[in-house]
């Protein structure tokens, strides 16, 4: 029972921003300390640990190249995280982000190699649109099942993840998707006209960061705008706050739930497109590789705030990019990064933990 409910003015995020940033930084420091301790206990030598931590930093933000890699890793996380946010605001726990990334990515891929003669200005948006539709359709099934039969979206989206995974596998092994020059399950390449262009190829061709990161920011702005400025966003938020009140106020709850689910999945589908039409350029089995679940963590870390998702996505992207460097330079397993991410999340999910470890950071006890 909470009685001291903070009053949230319109600028809630702004007023809470300082506290949240503080919390995340403290969580990160804690996680890194724990990671270092784990290395100590698993017999990694001190200089080696130092090297690991410094390469984590240099690998994520140490050079333009590193920053590029961070943003590349962050792009699908941010977009898919935003997809999850839309569902979460409607009170839907869309665990199907992973499957929606896969299907969206495949739709984008197919559109991306099917019309090689279109100019980019038409082809790229068309393929992205197809990716959105793919993700939306898959998620829409879960939304429809929920409305029609009351089946919980957590169950149905998990099931749909498996279906998506197998379906992609099937496509990759058969024409027209399979690359005719290969015998293994690898797809054709997306046409250049449907590929997200690299942003800094003129500066350094090895910098992989592409238009996807701008798309991610755009989607974040769009999601925020949708949620807080439009009637549909209002309906979605009411579904999350008190569906019954929305129903009594005359809202079409069934429609809103399905639409929210489809938007959620569609945006996750776009995240898939940033893979197949971006850094990968093609599809291989399970090309989402758990990004969908990581994206849920990104959204939760941002407490489901669209702007926060951009930053938490970059943080997770940095850990991934830095982690790869760490693995190469210091020979430390990438799993350690997963542990760091998990601890950061844990600390955010249980803010009291951080407040207890670092009471001095939060001295003026903030009681609403």
């Amino acid at each position: 029972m909470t009685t001291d409910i903070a009053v949230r003015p319109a600028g809630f995020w702004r007023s809470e921003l300082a506290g949240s940033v503080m919390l995340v930084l403290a969580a990160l420091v804690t996680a890194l300390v724990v990671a270092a301790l784990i290395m100590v206990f698993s017999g990694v030598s001190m200089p080696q640990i130092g090297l690991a931590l410094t390469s984590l930093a240099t690998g994520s933000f140490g050079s333009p190249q590193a920053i590029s890699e961070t943003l590349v890793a962050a792009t699908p996380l941010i977009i898919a995280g935003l997809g999850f946010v839309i569902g979460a605001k409607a009170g839907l726990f869309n665990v199907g982000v992973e499957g929606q990334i896969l299907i969206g990515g495949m739709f984008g891929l197919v559109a991306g190699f099917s019309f090689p003669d279109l100019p980019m200005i038409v082809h790229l948006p068309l393929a992205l649109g197809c990716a959105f539709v793919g993700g939306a359709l898959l998620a829409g099934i879960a939304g429809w099942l929920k409305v029609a039969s009351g089946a919980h979206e957590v169950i149905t989206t998990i099931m749909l993840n498996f279906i998506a995974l197998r379906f992609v596998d099937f496509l990759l092994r058969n024409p027209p998707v399979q690359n005719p020059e290969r015998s293994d399950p690898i797809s054709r390449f997306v046409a250049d006209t449907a590929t997200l262009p690299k942003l800094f190829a003129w500066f350094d061709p090895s910098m992989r960061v592409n238009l996807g990161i701008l798309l991610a920011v755009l989607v974040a702005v769009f999601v925020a705008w949708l949620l807080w400025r439009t009637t549909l966003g209002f309906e979605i938020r009411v579904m999350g706050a008190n569906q019954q009140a929305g129903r009594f106020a005359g809202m079409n709850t069934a429609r809103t739930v399905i639409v929210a689910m489809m938007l959620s999945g569609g945006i996750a589908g776009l995240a898939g497109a940033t893979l197949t039409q971006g850094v990968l350029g093609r599809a291989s089995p399970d090309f989402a590789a758990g990004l969908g679940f990581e994206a849920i963590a990104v959204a939760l870390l941002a407490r489901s705030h669209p702007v926060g998702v951009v930053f938490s996505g970059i943080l997770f992207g940095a850990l991934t990019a830095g982690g790869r460097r760490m693995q190469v330079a210091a020979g430390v397993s990438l799993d350690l990064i997963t542990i760091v991410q998990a601890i950061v999340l844990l600390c955010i999910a249980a803010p009291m933990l951080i407040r207890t470890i670092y009471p001095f950071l939060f001295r003026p006890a903030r009681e609403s």
Partner: protein
Amino acid sequence: MIITLDNITKRYGSFVANDSISLSVRSGEVHCLLGENGAGKTTLMNVIYGLSKADGGQISIDGKAVQFASPKDAIAAGIGMVHQHFMLIPAFSVTENVVLGLEPTLFGDRLDLDAARKRVRDISAQFGLEIDPDAPLEGMPVGIQQRVEIVKILYRAADIMIFDEPTAVLTPQEVIEFFKIIESLRAAGKAILFITHKLNEVMEIADRITVLRHGKVVGEADPATTSSGELANLMVGRPVSMLVSRTEAKAGDVVLALENVHVTDGTSKLALDGIDLVVKAGEIVGIAGVHGNGQTELIEVIAGLRPIVDGRICFAGGDIAGISPRERHRRGLAHVPEDRSIAGLAVTMSVAENMVLDSYYEPRFSRFGRIDWSSVRKAAAQLVSQFDVRTKSVDASAASLSGGNQQKVVIAREMSRPIKLMIAAQPTRGVDVGSIEYIHKRIVEARDEGVGVLLVSTELDEVLALSDRILVMFDGRILAEFDSRTADRSLIGLAMAGVVTQSQTHAPEIAP
């Protein structure tokens, strides 16, 4: 045993919810706390119960200063609280609910429910609670659930018991039972703090009365030497009329007509079994009846929230079967739901957002699917001042409002657009006398402007005070009809219990 509060102060930001409040409760005494909505009663109780921390002042028990960091400490000190919203788990039995949190264990951590069951039975017998320790909570009437809450705090050996508006959710019959329990608790030497908005209850049960206004103690009273009028005056700071002044109804055209309406309760059981009912423009039709005799289903079928199995509903001239709730709103239906926290408000959202919950899409608030928040906030601010909703701003969350002010938000919203029919279910639940007077006045004004009102209330006094015609519902049917000018309380009471004589039988006018 005596608990003393000394200059308790509690602030929310710059807002002072409790301003140096001092009072005491002795064992064997019922101390009633009165005050307007938002006066700070619940806040004070939460401080006593350790749910929120006072910014100043001292609580002491038997002269010894105490400090509660959480309800756990308060419970250990012998304080128990029955919240307005019960905290029970429906899937559990009475005993399981009671022991929740301090499960008795045998050697080896085995749950020892037998001992608990016996204690529940003993407590129940001692205070006349008539609770079956093994009954499942699921489907229990509210009145019984409340007793389970009482057992729960007695099980934890509470000597000081806090009740926050315990009677707001009870039917009149249940209130009588509840007061018997309070009597036996008092006789057993418990110190009881009791919050209510119903002055007749205060006059009946209180040993001492403290009145709060704007977070301050504005008066203490002895029920033997005071009157409810005086108390109301003290609470609100001005004389309050408890009678609704209204002229004879000038009933016009039929706005709502139900013909032989049948509705199921979700399973196959009939909840409405052939309802015929007419509401005309400019009249208030009151539905009296014990809760659970089909009132909820009646409201929902009219609002379009429940499918009709058989029969016809005409609203504003046309059959509305198959018409969406939204379209019904557009045609002039307003609905104050019976439980604001379940169906009336999205409490985590702001007051402004709640004010437009059913009108946000209208051209005055949105264009091309974009909401114009500045006009929403302006309209909300106007409603807030018009209906005297006590809130820091329209951007504050509805959850930060006191219960009565939340209710005013719902009423304000529903009356903020042109309407033809208003369904008002328990419109004054948890609202203070001053605001009841105001809400009643608004309902009568709406009637005089030609709105048809369907009032559903378990509060017979309210039905009698407001209605032009009174219908009694029993077991899914309308059993009797009374003209409010000549209605006899006791006959209505009998009808509510299912007993009617021939002359009262409901003979509806059939809609043209």
